[in-house]
């Protein structure tokens, strides 16, 4: 091949690559714009203030369009009906009657994540920095305690199977209660000191007690924790992201079992009897579930929309293992039930 010929071939490849890739991106951009324009606008409606006075569901709306990623509210009496959008945009949200905790991304050259405590009018009360990708957020029932879980990268060096989480509990006023990863972890009466210890997915029982997931050496446990004693004690194995029922007798969670990596099934553990019940949802659930009432569990499931965009829906399933899952709110994620 002569020098000139090679230069020509290279120019041809360069042009092909540039136009091919550029064309693909341009085409995607056009079809995205088209599907946005054609997307049936999600029904909006309802007055935020009056919704707040009745039982309602707070969630992250994943319907395509202007409201994507915004926190929305629907009354529990009509969950599939029109949704009222709040001004807040969050990756993960949780709410009580008076407060909400919002984990959000500040996208830029380096994407940073923050958590923001919102008051009843969805205005920011104060901000807390977050370390890593937002994963879970919970408030205690009276809204006085905040728990956030994020993924911090890097621990995978020694143990490639694990990523590092950081789970922090703060008072609503911003005062740090503790990094619960630093709490004493007791499994079968023995203190676990392994460096690969991770704790995540807090659910509060009262002002002191909470439940969470602890992991070490490839195992996970449901742990019963005390903020005052700064201790967490394992209750039951193979439990991730617990969620305490309103009557405080059961915990709904995702169970890995012998499924392939990255898959879980929903289950409920009875704290009084120690009995575990698998729920009727047949698919893999990766969410911290929430309780609609004492008999029903709600959770988010991801879905790929017709145009290839990633979205999700919130589903409900009976907490006693009976029945079958039903769609509660389409195009929604991160549900919080406020009664």
């Amino acid at each position, binding site marked *: 091949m002569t020098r000139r010929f090679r230069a020509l071939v290279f120019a041809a490849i360069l042009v092909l690559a540039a136009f091919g890739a550029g064309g*693909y991106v341009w085409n995607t951009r056009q079809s995205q714009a088209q599907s946005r324009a054609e997307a049936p606008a999600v029904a909006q409606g309802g007055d935020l203030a009056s919704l707040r006075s009745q039982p309602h569901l707070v969630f992250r709306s994943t319907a395509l369009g202007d409201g994507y990623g915004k926190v929305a509210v629907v009354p529990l009496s009509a969950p599939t009906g029109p949704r009222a959008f709040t001004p807040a945009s969050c990756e993960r949200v949780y709410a009580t009657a008076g407060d909400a905790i919002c984990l959000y991304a500040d996208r830029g050259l380096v994407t*940073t994540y923050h958590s923001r405590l919102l008051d009843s009018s969805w205005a920011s009360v104060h901000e807390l920095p977050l370390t890593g990708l937002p994963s879970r957020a919970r408030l205690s029932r009276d809204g006085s305690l905040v728990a956030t879980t994020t993924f911090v990268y890097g621990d995978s060096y020694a143990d490639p*199977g694990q990523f590092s989480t*950081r789970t922090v509990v703060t008072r609503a006023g911003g005062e740090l209660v503790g990094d619960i990863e630093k709490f004493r972890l007791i499994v079968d009466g023995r203190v676990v*000191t392994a460096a690969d210890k991770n704790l995540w997915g807090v659910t509060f029982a009262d002002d002191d007690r909470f439940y969470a997931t602890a992991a070490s050496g490839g195992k996970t446990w449901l742990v019963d924790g005390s903020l005052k004693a700064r201790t967490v004690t394992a209750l039951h194995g193979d439990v991730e992201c617990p969620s305490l029922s309103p009557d405080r007798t059961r915990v709904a969670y995702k169970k890995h079992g012998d499924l*392939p990596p990255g898959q879980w099934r929903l289950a409920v553990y009875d704290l009084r009897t120690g009995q575990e019940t698998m729920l009727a949802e047949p698919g893999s659930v990766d969410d911290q579930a929430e309780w609609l009432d004492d008999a029903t569990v709600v959770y988010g499931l991801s879905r790929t929309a017709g145009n290839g965009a*990633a979205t999700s829906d919130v589903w409900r399933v009976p907490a006693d293992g009976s029945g079958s899952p039903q769609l509660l709110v389409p195009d929604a994620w991160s549900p919080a039930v406020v009664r």
Partner: protein
Amino acid sequence: MYVSLRDRPGSDAGSGAGRVARRVSSTVFLLGTVSLLTDVSSEMVASVLPLYLTASVGLSLFAYGFLDGMYQGVSAVVRIAGGFAGDRGGQPKWVAVLGYGASALSRLAMLPAAGFAAITAVVTADRLGKGLRTAPRDALIVEASDPALLGRSFGVHRALDTVGAALGPLVAFALLASVPGSYDSVFVVSFAFAIVGVAVLVLFVPNLRTAGSAAKIGLRMALSEISGRRLRRPLVAAGLLGLLTVGDGFLYLTLQERDNLTAVYFPLLYVGTNIAYLALAVPLGRLSDRIGRARVLVAGHVALLGCYLLAALPAGGVALTAGVLLLLGVFYASTDGVLPALIGRLVRPEARGSGIAAAQTVVALSRFASSLLFGLLWTFQGPGRSLLLFAVVLTVAVPAAGWLLRDSDR
């Protein structure tokens, strides 16, 4: 930019006559360009992969951690195979083409891949390609370079490589900002970069045959060359130092544990180290040509020692963190390119790829062992004391390595 057209140095090595005209070979710039384009391509995918897997495929980050482990492991295994294949055929270029090509094709395979198993397979193919190409490419750099400028040549190559690694995430996030949620666009553009990189390699990089290609090297010869007199001491020194090299992931975790600001800007720690590495790769490569590669390699570990001591301090703060990152950059700039430059001159030309691969594998394996060890120590006594312990042992190991390498700089 000065690009010389001279592709065949080596014969007049060290004669001093060419002192004025000595330039880094155009082949090195071409290989650097190939690496730059390929790194843009691979870092684009690597930076969006956690997001893609969790947001689009629905895997958890824990599954991603498993994937990342696969990623690292596969690469080391095929590295020696790549080095040897390049030597055996006497055509390291085409082995490198195979490696770069496999990685490029894996970008396209991401498009239909869905589910954990498929994505694991694709990622593994990418890493196989990376493992395969590294040693033959470094052998080509040695072959194309004036021996007196080897450190500088590797410095230029690694600097270009780092530019690509820095640009990749920026391109990916710019794309995702323009077409939100379209990971397919990232994969397609990544493929375009990779294919242009392969085109540069195939069309412009000369197919330099190793000097003694008439005598084809067998497996036994390659092994005896690796374990032979010339390489034994440098390999032992590299292994010894590797055993005391705490992975940068651990250092970053130490930094983020001691002050919260660092924790928030965790991703920036990698960027800081890369900037220092980028700025210092060429100057330190030149220094290694002047005062000796083994010296710079050993001195780089003194910087690492300083890094441990700074990171072990109980106090945090911006200045200390910046100091750690700068020293880490110095360490990488004085080791990553300098090691193949050192080994490439010591080993016989017909076993060059195998020798370089052996050194890189020794370093990778000993660093992995070091990570396991350090993780264990961290468990028992926390990061600060573990770093101090590593620092103490490194203080003894650095002069020992210097002694082992005393004759390597002739």
